[in-house]
């Protein structure tokens, strides 16, 4: 995948902007003044060692964690304090670490739930089983089938997620996120548990989500992240220690020390008593 020119800073309109966000859990400072921006069409990778604050950053953006200070904006509008359930209607979709599918719903129903922001029929119509409600359901079904088709899951629409291989479940989870036609797609460890072929399929898919969609992904799979992302942000101890295009970031000495170098010096780290474990 080609890498882009370094971007201009966001001017406020379009995209997600996280500014100086601070989060602490009791004594632990999970995020200490983190600023991150993603613009439409960009694939941003967020990497960092365990406990660096990546999931916390996602949770802040999704409204599950309230920051002590700092601001968030999406498409030029403030996002701080927005209820998680409103994100879908704002065009923000997220997959969860693992799969996070609804176990008792079929694959099709799972993805229909993802498309439900486009639902128009309200409770009284549904209660009386009126045709408007049925028509609404058909529309959701069509949207879900399109999303499932994009991920090659047409054959498993009536299955329950638990009966499918892990990789297929992950694709269904992605279909559910895509069914809401997001403008910001947040993927928490999308590559976990996938083999090489599935990884390259996933990479192609992320590359094809569209030029107007911003993608933000967290993953530990370094080669995958470098090949898929246009830009990388590296977190360590709740701080951004590097931000730039993948090949540059990969060479950054601080990053090498904090993260990439860890594999190389892992033996040393283990010998010196595992400072990393104490942190995580």
């Amino acid at each position, binding site marked *: 995948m080609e890498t882009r020119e370094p971007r201009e800073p966001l001017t406020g309109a379009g995209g997600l902007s996280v500014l100086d966000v601070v989060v602490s859990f009791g004594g632990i400072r999970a995020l200490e003044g983190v600023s991150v921006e993603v613009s439409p069409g960009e694939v941003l990778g967020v990497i960092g060692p365990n406990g660096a604050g990546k999931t916390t950053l996602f949770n802040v953006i*999704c409204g*599950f964690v309230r920051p002590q200070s700092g601001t968030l904006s999406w498409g030029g509008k403030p996002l701080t304090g927005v*209820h*998680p*359930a*409103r*994100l*879908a*209607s704002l065009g923000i*979709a*997220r997959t*969860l670490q693992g799969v*996070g*599918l*609804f*176990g*008792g*719903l079929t694959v099709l*129903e*799972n993805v*229909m*739930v*993802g498309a*439900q*922001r486009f*639902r128009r*029929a309200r*409770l009284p119509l*549904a*209660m*009386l*089983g*009126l*045709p408007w*409600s*049925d028509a*609404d*359901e*058909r529309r*959701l079904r069509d949207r879900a089938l399109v999303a499932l088709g994009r991920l090659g899951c047409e054959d498993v629409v*009536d299955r*329950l997620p638990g009966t499918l291989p892990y990789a297929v479940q992950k694709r269904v989870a992605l279909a*559910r996120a895509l069914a*809401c036609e997001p403008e910001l797609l947040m993927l928490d460890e999308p590559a976990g548990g996938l083999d090489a072929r599935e990884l390259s399929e996933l990479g192609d898919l992320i590359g094809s989500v569209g030029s107007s969609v911003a993608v933000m992904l967290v993953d530990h799979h370094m080669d995958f992240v470098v090949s898929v992302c246009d830009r990388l942000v590296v977190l360590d101890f709740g701080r951004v220690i590097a931000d730039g295009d993948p090949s540059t970031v990969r060479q950054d000495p601080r990053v090498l020390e904090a993260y990439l170098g860890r594999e190389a010096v892992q033996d040393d780290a283990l010998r010196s008593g595992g400072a990393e474990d104490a942190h995580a």
Partner: protein
Amino acid sequence: MTSKLVGVFRGSTLLRSLAIVLVAGVVLIVVTDSVSSYRNLQIAYGAYYFCVLAGLTVLAGASGQISLGQGAFMAVGGYTFAKLNASPVGWSVFPSLSGAVAASILIGIPVGVAASRLRGPYLAGATLAFAVGLPALADKFPAFFGGENGLIVNPPIAPPWLGANFQLERWEAWVACAGALVVVFVLYNLTHSAVGRSWRAVRDGEIAASLSGLRVGRQQALAFTISASCAGLGGGLLAAVTQVASPGAFPLQLSLTLLAGVVIGGLGSLAGAVWGAALLVFLPNWTTDIAGSFSLSSNVSHNLPIAVYGLVLIVAMLVWPSGIQGGVRVIKRGAGSAIRSRRGRGSAEPATAASEATEPIADEEMNASHP
């Protein structure tokens, strides 16, 4: 031509729910015409139990919440019915029943909102506390609620066009069954719409559901309120059929037996609620017979039904964890595949598709227990 009609039928939730209501209604009319007045009374009992159980089974099966307070919502419906039906208000049966539903919705909303913040044992405890606390209110205002004796309700009068000799019990059965069919209609439609799917999504994953745009608490409160309204209707029907709304009609153990009925019948399935209702009608008789034949002391025999419920519940959970309806499904599926394998593969495919399209929605969709 016919295939087109079948397509329209299958695509329309309204037509399907109306068909169920119509068939069940015709069957009930025929049955109530041919059985004794005692049996008609039992049908009426079964119908009001069904209302409560159907609401509870959707609450527990689809939205994953539990309520030990359904008896209290029945009391709300029963007392409201009695108050509206008697002078000075003097409404007739059906308006009074609507009032009973409205009252249980009004009380169901705040309880449902509170319940949506609680999980597991806390939810069970809070709803139980509600079931214990609400009847105490009736004790506090004996002048208004009639104290221990409760409120007397006039027998419902069959409309004149049914003839002068129309049996009271048969009319009571009709009224109660009409209520049950309304419940079937509404719950069938809801569980086959985006609403039912949202409940099941919230049940299976609250974080994923809210990321899909669902307000978890609101969905749970909605499911709770709807099940409360079903219980309120059941309670109103109980008052209409038994002609009394008294503390003794809504004891604490009623809430427990309702939960047992739902679990034994098969969680999450409207058909299971029919089994549960039948159980609730017949089990007390059986236990009374047993108690009589063993000449047990009244102390023991009074508590026998609840003990038997407990026993049946434990046995059912061990043998048939998905309830009676779960067992019926297994038998039906076994029979279905036997027929299909005899018919050979060619005709088997469409048959599978058809049964797959109709059956699972009827019962299984709300259950997580697919094989």
